[in-house]
């Protein structure tokens, strides 16, 4: 790459981000907004790669653009009849005392001001060689981000799993109170092309997820990216009716969403006895332990994402009627 292509790419990316984001926020039709939001997610993934965070690029492409997009599209399809029934919504819902140009100028002015202040207050480069970086460098996992996630900041990851579980429990509570229409097929869709596509894509997704899980120790990848890919596999099976909603889920489906928290919590209880501090790994078997934790996290993230997507208490294999 020559000297000027890098900055040019950055400039084009930034411009595209702002324009796509502006259209996504302002599009009159919901479908347009959702489609542009998915484009926005993909652009963000490229930006992460440009900023030297391939882990984030993978996660953003799978979760930010892919999974959130799928969620939004399903809801979008469900509400798409509203406009035809009750007339389209007005484009804006501002109070009378705040005209649109004023609101626009205030928000964008605030954003621009914030951006300039943030740009001016960027710390000088090369401040990263601190104690944490030195500790990460000598870790058995050579992928720094995975090491930080699972070891140095294990508390964050544990609590994040709690947030994910809370969202799933919350959805389940909502569905229990008021059964929502299930937008997905109730039995396997018998399309010959769809079936052969699934036969091709499912093993591929499974292998990719396993690869990301194992590769996360040394390179870009890890539990989040692998879990998102497995979740995508589940979403695919759900959309094609291979997985259907189940009001009383079987034991594996009950265990899967809590596996990550369970293993992490068990580690938190046991690790003080082995290594003297909670959530610290005894150096002798740090790598196998980390692999167990990562696998449990992957299963939990995938299962919770699929449950969130289906908005169902549990899932089971769909049977042909």
């Amino acid at each position, binding site marked *: 790459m020559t000297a000027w292509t890098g900055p040019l790419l950055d400039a084009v990316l930034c411009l595209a981000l702002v324009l796509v984001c502006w259209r996504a926020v302002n599009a009159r039709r919901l479908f347009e907004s959702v489609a542009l939001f998915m484009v926005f997610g993909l652009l963000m993934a490229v930006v992460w790669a440009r900023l030297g965070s391939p882990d984030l690029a993978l*996660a953003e492409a799978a979760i930010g653009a892919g999974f959130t997009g799928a969620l939004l599209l399903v*809801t979008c399809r469900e509400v798409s009849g509203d406009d035809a029934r009750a007339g389209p919504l007005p484009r804006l819902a501002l109070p009378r005392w705040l005209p649109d140009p004023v609101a626009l100028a205030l928000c*964008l002015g605030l954003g621009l001001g914030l951006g300039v202040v943030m740009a001016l207050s960027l710390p000088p480069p090369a401040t990263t060689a601190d104690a*944490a*970086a030195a500790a990460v460098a000598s870790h058995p996992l050579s992928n720094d981000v995975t090491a930080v996630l699972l070891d140095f900041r294990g508390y964050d990851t544990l609590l994040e799993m709690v947030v994910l579980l809370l969202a799933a429990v919350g*959805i389940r509570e909502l569905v229990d109170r008021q059964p929502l229409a299930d937008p997905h097929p109730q039995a396997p869709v018998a399309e010959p092309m769809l079936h052969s596509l699934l036969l091709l894509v499912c093993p591929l997704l499974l292998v990719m997820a396993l690869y990301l899980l194992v590769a996360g120790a040394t390179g870009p990848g890890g539990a989040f990216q692998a879990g998102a890919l497995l979740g995508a596999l589940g979403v695919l099976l759900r959309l094609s009716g291979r997985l259907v909603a189940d009001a009383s889920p079987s034991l594996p489906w009950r265990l899967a969403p809590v596996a990550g928290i369970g293993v992490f919590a068990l580690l938190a209880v046991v690790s003080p006895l082995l290594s003297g501090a909670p959530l610290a790994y005894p150096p002798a078997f740090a790598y196998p332990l980390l692999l167990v934790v990562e696998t449990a996290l992957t299963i939990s993230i995938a299962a919770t994402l699929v449950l969130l997507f289906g908005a169902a208490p549990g899932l089971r294999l769909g049977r042909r009627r």
Partner: protein
Amino acid sequence: MTALYAVTAGLLFGAGLYGVLARPGLIQRLLALNVMASSIFLYLVVLAAGDGSAAADPVPQAMVLTGIVVAVSVTAFALGLVRWFRSETGAASLESDALRRDDD
């Protein structure tokens, strides 16, 4: 290079804020909220990236990774709430009837 991304993060934040304040549809607001979250992530990663000569600081990256997963949980739960709200009131926007009257 990083200064450009910082300014972009600010602009994205402004656009998202405008969407949250000005759009009537609940799903559009949720989408704008996600844009705001992305802008914060962008700034955190810009802070981590430095000038590109040294390896990026892994701690902010790990926090952003956590943030992405938390954001998708929030989105999924909020979409569940929107669907529930719609099944109760018949609309996926706040005070949709009053809004539609104003628009005439």
